[in-house]
């Protein structure tokens, strides 16, 4: 992932988020699948607004957590890939 990465992942509007205490589930009515999202995955999913690139997300995570951007980029990339494979976002 680099700053020149122009992908702008977009969350699928039909996915429904339910919060119950500290747990968050994402329900995909097209597949009837329910996915459990941890806080980081939920935060990244929410940032997939069709305008924000994965690199911008990684920069923000790096700033908020104080962790090096190199370390964070790989994790954000994994999260974006996983969300796409689960059908929760489109790239």
């Amino acid at each position, binding site marked *: 992932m680099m700053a020149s990465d122009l992908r702008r992942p977009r969350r699928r509007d039909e996915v429904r988020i339910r919060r119950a205490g500290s747990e968050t589930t994402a329900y995909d009515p097209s597949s009837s699948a329910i996915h459990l999202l941890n*806080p980081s995955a939920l935060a990244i999913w929410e*940032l997939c607004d069709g305008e*924000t690139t994965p690199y*911008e*997300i990684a920069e*923000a995570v790096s700033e*908020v*957590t*104080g962790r090096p951007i190199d370390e964070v980029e790989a994790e954000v990339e994994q999260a974006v890939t996983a969300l796409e494979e689960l059908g929760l976002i489109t790239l």
Partner: protein
Amino acid sequence: MGAMADATSVLIVSSDEGVSAALAAFLIGNDGTEVVGQASTAREAATPSLGADVALILPGMGSNGELVTELASRTAVVVLGDPDDADAMVEAVEAGALAFLGHDAPFGEIVEAVHAVSEGRAIVPPQLLGSLLRRVVRRRRSEREAAEQLSVLTDREREIFELTARGLGRIEAAEMLFISPHTVRTHMQRILAKLNLHSRSELVAFAARCGYEVGVNGKDVDDGI
């Protein structure tokens, strides 16, 4: 008080002496932490001699963004505040705090946060992560866009832009740059035209959005630019 090897030193910042004393007593009695000072005002807290690994800012003082930023420049900061005030939490983190805990957090949780931030780890309440990241993305994007706009300025114009944003008047800026106030005025007019701004105050607001340090107007400021 004997210094313990590897103990995390803590500066407690609080205007409430009772709460400060109670927390200090707990931290002193806890293996791994020691209290190196208690400050009841922002001025006391900013005293450089109060070197500490962690500054623990208790409720009432964490909303002072300048205090948080000042302390965060030289130590790790934990802020305690209203757990329902999402804006306050986000602002504290954006000001440089590495952790924000509710004011009713158990002492054990406070100690864990102290150790975590002393190791450079941030603690962000999970329910806030999304809104905090969104704000950071928006702010960074705005700064990037503004930086692109500033790229049209010459080096000298950039210098004058920065001095003006900091609140210097024409004469002060001229003295600092060894040029005449008339020349500063000419540059300012060009800067405003290039950035499509119409006044000094618009320039200052624009500079703030760019992430520049802005200040109150100096003594010789007038909006005749």
